[in-house]
């Protein structure tokens, strides 16, 4: 909002250049690392995955707690920089040499580098947990071909995180070694290479884009069949397309670097790979559209948001294809055209399904319905606001406005478009307030929803709303990808519950099954709640604060303390039979 107010007219005075740089960097870093990824994967993934696959908990409940506390601590760590006036100011990709001590002597960049390494621990722990949960804790009978498409999307995201984040961590480690210990990775004078930063950053950065978009695709593939009242068409193709998007995401990083003078052969390879992403994306788009078309669609608010998502995704995707053409990219690099493109993807395509998903699963989480009329209205306000905010950015980009400028001179023909964008951003804010106002009101005043208000097909609708802390009273047995539509199986569950089969009522137990076929293999006794994860997160926070302030000895001591906490954590073993 501050950013848009600043750019509403020429020569804005709201923010100075330094404050603008900090605001812009924090906007990018916050939205990517502390909003979309945690909401998409942390909130939706952690809450829904166990419910959808018929498990009682995540595979490693304590690691889940650890992941949460570290996330919180890393957020506090990074935001403390704002109050110290030392927020990162180098843009979210923080290119060298702007990030070196010579050009950025304050703690700003150190907050960025250490904060993201810290945050990376949380994301990695969460991703490992999700992968193992999806592999091992599926309900009996849920073989891989019966796994919900949302679980495929989360699986693809988690693998992307596990493979991409370490590379970012190494890159940030190089940066800190260069800044704090005088190592030479990125400076030419001592045999380093500034492009190395970019290669490593974007090797992480592009998969990150798919990490952002894939949970949204997973939400779309959950909402569409429910409201179209039919199974997803081309189910295996959509599942493969979700995995393929994540896979190809690792082969396209240099398309962020077309204008850096890398070799032509590299350019052509990465242009080709970038074009290839179109194939799995298009498979999914057509599968969504035809599922709606062949079903009997009921356009309630969640489906409206998915419709908006598809429209915005297509616009953002089309401008994306334009960038894969190298000459076009070289002409528009770092212009507002790029800003328009990635906001259509990251805001339009990634956040719209999150909003739709909030409406869709709101009754499951709270046991109450949201207000349908307000929800539909909020969709239209948000959609128009989004278009008005981000579409003119294409035009000013082509008119020559470059990104990351904090002000501009009058008379360049940019004022009207920028004013429209600013008005759009206020409209967008109103839309988002309507969404959250609706949910807040419905939380207390909404009509009770019952367990399954939309007649959804996946297992989360088979239990009560809100679900009990053990998720399912009896472990469901699954025979199709939409088990909640198999009435006989669910009636069987009730009969097994009465007979006491697979109820697992003693303690904190959940079944584990084989990875491919989902055959019941063993019953796991899950660990109880524990105070160790929060202590560990606290110790690690001190490590990072000491690293920031270059008290390396104290940091070392607290690393040792962290190891002791880990040992104490694992000292108590589950009872043997």
């Amino acid at each position: 909002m501050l950013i848009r107010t600043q750019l509403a007219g020429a020569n804005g005075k709201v923010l100075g250049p330094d404050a603008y740089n900090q605001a812009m960097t924090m906007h990018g870093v916050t939205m990517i690392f502390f909003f979309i990824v945690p909401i998409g994967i942390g909130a939706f993934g952690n809450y829904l995955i166990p419910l959808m696959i018929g498990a009682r908990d995540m595979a490693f409940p304590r690691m889940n707690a650890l992941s949460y506390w570290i996330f919180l601590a890393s957020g506090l760590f990074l935001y403390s920089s704002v109050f110290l006036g030392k927020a990162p100011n180098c843009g979210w990709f923080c290119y060298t040499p702007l990030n070196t001590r010579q050009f950025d002597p304050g703690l700003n960049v150190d907050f960025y580098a250490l904060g993201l390494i810290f945050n990376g621990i949380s994301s990695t722990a969460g991703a490992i947990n999700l992968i193992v949960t999806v592999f091992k804790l599926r309900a009996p009978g849920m073989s891989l071909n019966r796994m919900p498409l949302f679980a495929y999307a989360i699986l693809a995201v988690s693998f992307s995180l596990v493979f991409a984040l370490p590379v970012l961590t190494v890159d940030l480690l190089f940066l800190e070694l260069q800044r704090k210990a005088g190592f030479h990775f990125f400076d030419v004078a001592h045999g380093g290479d500034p492009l190395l930063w970019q290669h490593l950053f974007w090797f992480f950065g592009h998969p990150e884009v798919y990490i952002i978009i894939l949970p949204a695709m997973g939400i779309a593939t959950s909402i569409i069949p429910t409201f179209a009242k039919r199974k997803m068409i081309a189910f295996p193709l959509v599942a493969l397309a979700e995995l393929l998007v994540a896979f190809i995401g690792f082969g396209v990083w240099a398309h962020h670097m077309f204008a850096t003078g890398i070799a032509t052969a590299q350019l052509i390879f990465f242009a080709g790979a970038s074009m290839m992403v179109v194939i799995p994306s298009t498979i999914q788009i057509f599968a969504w559209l035809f599922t709606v078309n062949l079903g009997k669609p009921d356009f309630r608010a969640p489906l409206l948001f998915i419709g908006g998502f598809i429209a915005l995704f297509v616009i953002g995707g089309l401008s994306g294809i334009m960038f894969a053409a190298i000459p076009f990219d070289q002409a528009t690099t770092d212009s507002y055209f790029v800003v328009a493109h990635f906001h259509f993807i990251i805001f339009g395509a990634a956040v719209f399904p999150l909003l739709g998903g909030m409406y869709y699963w709101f009754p499951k989480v709270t046991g109450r319905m949201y207000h349908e009329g307000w929800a539909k209205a909020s969709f239209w306000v948000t959609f128009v606001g989004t278009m008005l905010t981000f579409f003119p950015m294409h035009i000013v980009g082509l008119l020559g406005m470059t990104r990351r400028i904090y002000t501009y001179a009058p008379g360049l023909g940019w004022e009207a478009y920028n004013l429209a964008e600013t008005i759009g951003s206020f409209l967008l804010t109103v839309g988002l307030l309507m969404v959250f106002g609706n949910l807040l009101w419905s939380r207390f005043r909404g009509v009770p929803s019952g367990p399954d208000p939309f007649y959804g097909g996946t297992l989360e609708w088979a239990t009560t709303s809100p679900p009990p802390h053990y998720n399912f009273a009896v472990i469901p047995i699954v025979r199709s990808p939409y088990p909640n539509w198999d009435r006989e199986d669910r009636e069987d569950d009730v009969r097994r519950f009465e007979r006491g089969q697979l109820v697992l009522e003693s303690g904190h137990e959940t079944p584990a099954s084989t990875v491919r076929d989902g055959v019941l293999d063993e019953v796991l006794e899950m660990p109880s709640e524990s105070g160790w994860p929060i202590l560990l997160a606290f110790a690690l926070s001190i490590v990072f604060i000491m690293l920031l302030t270059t008290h390396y000895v104290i940091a070392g001591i607290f690393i040792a303390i962290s190891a002791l906490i880990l040992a104490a954590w694992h000292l108590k073993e589950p009872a043997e039979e």
Partner: protein
Amino acid sequence: MSTASYAQRISRPIGWWGMAVFVAGEAMVFGALLVTYFHLRIRNNPWPPHGVPEPKVAVPLFLTGVLVSTSGAMQYALVRARRGFASDARFALLIALTLQVTYLALQLHFFVDDLSKFSPSATSYGSIYFTLVGAHHAHVFVGVVLTAWILLRLVRGITSYRLVGLSAITWYWHFVNALAIIVTLVQVSPSL
């Protein structure tokens, strides 16, 4: 329903899967470090630069051979522990631990020796050399702590929980030892 014991389980336990996925991520750390090594090497001639001694060959290769042999000891410990022979497992772990600690102590000695000869903050060769080798030593150190930990746990007998721990730690060591071969070969490669 009673809890199936380790022997009855037909697929790998979740603890093993957790370690496997973690190790895959760690492999990416070393992938990035190795790519950086060659990225910088292509851009710098000569490599190592003037004034920096060429790396020794025989000693690092010998030490790596010793470290890799502990993979056998770890695997033997796991196999014996699964069959219930706790004392055999402890003996094999003790041998593995001794070799691992010896390896780490000698490597740290050479690391400090290298530091006295050339500085990580003088050239990009020094920067990536010490970062790559140091990162591997850190992984060996973590492995040593894990071996010592599981050895202490097995003193009080074998449980199915400890067996899962042992299998995860054994896999961690197979990974670190495979890395040792690659990292050492890269480290000595300018002299070959």
